[in-house]
């Protein structure tokens, strides 16, 4: 698989290539998995996976339903602990990280959860602002950042709405906004376009690409082949039944 189908982003691409060349040699792996497995009961959700993700990489994770994609993500942001193997994220060994350090690990990782995980009794604004509040930012800065990011995801007119009154796609865009608002080093997006029409899906992808261009490492779990094939310079990792069955780089 090389270049995807229709590509609307020519200019940023050029920029990206230049940027990529400069940094190519100096990049270190920001996420490292060594023989990682996750077992639930007798069943392995993830089995013996070893991957290095370089800082600034853009990666698609694919695989059929139940292949272990979400589980892999969860282990990276430590919602689940690996049963076996070692995970190192941003220099921290997740096996040995102290309880008190976990929030700081998570502040470096923006997650778009597969089920959104919006707080139902907080407004859209409150949900997105929470990330910055938890990080102890000043309120003027919070206001500016949150409004800016909601503007870009097209949710600015719903700032005061509560998640249960939003459409599926709107909820998903709030989840995207929340994941990026803290300018995290790593963005983990679990099916970030599942509830979106192809146009909105493309704009969310472009949006994540902007953060990637600014240096963020992005991992996207997706079933949307059209989207995947439209993205340049992305590595694609494929899981089946918890094991790694393929890697491909589109250039």
């Amino acid at each position, binding site marked *: 698989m090389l270049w995807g189908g229709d590509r609307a982003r020519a200019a940023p691409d050029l920029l990206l290539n230049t940027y990529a060349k400069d940094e190519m040699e100096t990049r270190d792996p920001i996420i490292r998995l060594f023989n990682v497995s996750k077992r639930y009961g007798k069943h392995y959700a993830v089995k013996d996976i070893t991957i290095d993700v370089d800082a600034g990489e853009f990666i698609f994770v694919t695989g059929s339903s139940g292949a272990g994609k979400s589980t892999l993500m969860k282990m990276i*942001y430590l*919602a689940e602990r690996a049963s076996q193997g070692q995970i190192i994220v941003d220099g921290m060994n997740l096996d040995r990280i102290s*309880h*008190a350090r*976990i*929030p*700081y690990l*998570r*502040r470096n990782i923006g*997650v778009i*959860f597969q089920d959104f*995980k*919006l*707080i*139902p*009794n*907080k407004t859209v604004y409150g949900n997105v602002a*929470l*990330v910055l*509040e*938890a*990080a102890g930012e000043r309120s003027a800065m919070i206001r500016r950042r949150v409004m800016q990011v909601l503007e870009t995801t097209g949710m600015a007119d719903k700032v005061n709405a509560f998640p249960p009154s939003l459409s599926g796609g709107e909820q998903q865009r709030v989840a995207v906004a*929340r994941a990026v608002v*803290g300018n995290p080093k790593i963005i983990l997006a679990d099916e970030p376009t599942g509830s979106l029409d192809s146009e909105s899906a493309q704009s969310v992808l472009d949006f994540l690409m902007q953060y990637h261009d600014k240096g963020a490492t992005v991992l996207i779990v997706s079933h949307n082949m059209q989207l995947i094939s439209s993205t340049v310079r992305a590595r694609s990792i494929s899981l089946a039944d918890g094991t790694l069955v393929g890697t491909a780089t589109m250039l």
Partner: protein
Amino acid sequence: MFHYFKRAVLDILSNRFLNVITIVTIALSILVVSTFVLFFENTSRVIDSWNQGFRLVAYLGESFTPSMLPKLTAKIQAMAEAGEIRFIPKEEGLALLKQEMKNRSAFLETLEENPLPHVLEIRMKRTGLEWDEITAFAKTVEQLPQVTDVEYGQQWLGRFLSLFNLFRVTGYAMSSLFFLIALFITANTVRLALYSRRQEVEIMRLVGATDRFIITPFYIQGLIQGTLGGIVGLSILLIIFLVISLNLQESAASYMLFDIQFLSVKYWVIIIFGSAFLGWLGCYLSLKQFIKY
């Protein structure tokens, strides 16, 4: 800190149902405790006023002359248990006896000489004395030179005192028990309220919030809930008290030979602080369960 307080207040406003339920539960628990304390305090007060009525009667021998009185009185007054002392000369004693005996007193008129001894009536200083203490005191008085005999309630008084002391002990035990129960009920309610918010807490953790960031507003909420609950509970008690005592005063004015009184300000303060503590502790006990990594 102000920032946490603001978040706590906002959180109360956006979870009105849970907060109202929690505050009402705390208020009701406080109502139970304070109703019982009110009841117990008033009963104790009335019983104490009776208790003060108990007295020792010391009969003075033939050797006693009224001039010895100041010295004897001073001796008794020096004892820790002794309160007010009244001297009843034998003339007054006879008059009292006549009055006491009413229908049977006619024959007393026929007496040539007053056969009664002089008497000292000694009230107890403290209330709530144990039977042992009274007996010991009586023994000491009996050993005084002019005193021939000491009389006191004996059997009857012993029974009365042991009952009162039991009443008192049970009352304090029940106040504590009710407070403990209020604590458990509050903790239970807070736990349920948090249970229905466990997802929210989980989400906060997942987006990088520290324990402190999550927990502090809950504690402040607990304090606010506790304080409000205490105030509401006490207010309900005050209203019930006023309504009932007004009615009682109308319908039963003639029988009411004592006042029922509302809890003193000291108790208000204790109850409201206790209630705030209740809210806080309820949070503490419940959060331990829900905030874990």
